[in-house]
């Protein structure tokens, strides 16, 4: 990528020789992976609900609508996870996983002729849920503000004190004419 983007640079601009430590943590990479996985799965659910329904043995208009809804939910959670609101996106993925698990558990009923497909699907969802939970927990932990907020009441910025600076400004202001158009009439 850097070789390509170097085309836009002047010959004398610095170019990367060796890449170093990143601000992105491994958990960020995992979160991005989960988001893209969700967006791809969601797109599949939106576009091919009948095929997914048939594979899982749930063939009804209600089931197809539910699969489409789950697809839209996956895409929305993926978009949020890719944004700077990563924590919200990952926790919404966890909530979505719970819905998936509930729906797949319902499809495990004995009358379902395709229940042999539901088991592996459930195991896959449980695996993804574990990853989502781990990522959400880590991101929450990392962004949490720890300890008491510091008190910066000693940081006035005015070496001679705030009152003196204000007085000095007032003296300077009183020596200049107040412009009528901009004068306040509060007093």
């Amino acid at each position: 990528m850097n070789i390509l983007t170097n085309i836009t640079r002047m010959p004398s601009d610095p170019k990367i020789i060796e890449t170093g430590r990143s601000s992105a943590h491994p958990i960020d990479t995992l979160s991005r992976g989960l988001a893209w996985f969700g967006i791809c799965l969601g797109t599949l659910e939106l576009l091919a609900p009948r095929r997914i329904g048939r594979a899982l043995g749930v063939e009804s208009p209600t089931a197809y609508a539910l699969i489409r809804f789950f697809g839209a939910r996956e895409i929305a959670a993926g978009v949020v996870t890719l944004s700077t609101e990563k924590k919200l996106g990952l926790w919404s993925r966890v909530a979505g996983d719970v819905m998936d698990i509930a729906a797949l558990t319902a499809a495990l009923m004995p009358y379902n002729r395709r229940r042999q497909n539901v088991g592996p699907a459930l195991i896959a969802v449980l695996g993804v849920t574990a990853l989502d939970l781990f990522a959400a927990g880590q991101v929450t932990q990392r962004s949490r503000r720890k300890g008491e907020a510091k008190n910066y009441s000693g940081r006035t910025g005015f070496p001679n004190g705030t009152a003196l600076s204000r007085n000095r400004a007032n003296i300077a202001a009183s020596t200049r004419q107040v412009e009528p158009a901009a004068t306040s009439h509060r007093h």
Partner: protein
Amino acid sequence: MKALVWHGKEDIRCDRVSDPEIEEPRDAIIKVTSCAICGSDLHLFHNFIPAMLPGDIMGHEMMGEVVEVGSGVNGHLKKGDRIVVPFTIFCGECDQCKAGNYSVCERSNRKKEMADKVFGHATAGLFGYSHLTGGYPGGQAEYLRVPFADTTHIKIPDGLTDEQVLFLGDIFPTGWQAVKQCDIQPTDTVAIWGCGPVGQMAIRSAVLLGAEQVIAIDYLPERLSMAEAGGATTINFKQESVIERLNDLTDGKGPEKCLDATGMESHVSFSQPDTIYDRAKQMVMMESDRPHVLREMIYVCRPAGVISIPGVYSGLIDKMPMGIAMNKGLTFKMGQTHVNRWSDDLLNRIAENQIDPSFVITHTASLEDGPEMYNVFRDKRDSCVKVVLKP
């Protein structure tokens, strides 16, 4: 040399890169002694500013020692001079520079054609702030090439520390200009949204320029305590209604001067539904900026008042109450800072001990720790307000 390099959203790395070279006769190279992470760097970190490319060096708040000068610098600078580099690059010769409008210099943006297409007319080149503003490598690095160095510098006299003068390159004149362009009168109330570094500088500037009352709005206790120390009355927007409190503090009339020191990434809160709406639209790229603060300022500002916007906005905003602004006769003042228009005055004020901008520094780290400091600053961990890096 080492430099903090943008590789993508939330991915800044401390890379080894080739050293900068003199490119034009008016260039100089400086050895950076101090640089800082600016709140507007976080917009790049979050990839909200268009035209950033992997490999771009970050940073537009820096100072250092001149180590090499081009043949066209003509004695304005010499090796060993200690300078602060303003974030706006300017030629000093075009019509805008002659008028003191340095941040819209007509010649310093080396990607003018692209900027003309996007902005209508190009603005000045900026250090480390996307290819729309020239794609110049930034100053979060060990060395920096300064284009138009004979004009683009603030020479620092002996006896002042880096920490005292570093912010002359951006946040101090940015806060100062934001207040100056309000045309403060002795009876004025100035309300300032956002108590980050620019907000803190604006508070001190309003005090120095003689505003009767300065009100600062934020929700982080450490920032509110710093604002109060600077002479502001504070409003915690998570604990009370901003509009009600501002009206209470101004006899029901609203502040004459309203200043937005938050910009495009204003806080998102369930108690302010429009912020949720903006965040959702921003996520799906239907809106680039979150203008909650602008809406609130327009609503609460006293008729015939001034709205001053030093906070960075990048593109398109939605649901702006222009009808209210028009009917109230509000004046809008905004723009990137014309740093050198103010630098002599501000340097004098620092030298005379009227103000010491180093009060805002809460964290100092090495350049190698820079990538993690972006996370610390973004998440406001450890009560972080301002990070200075020492290459």
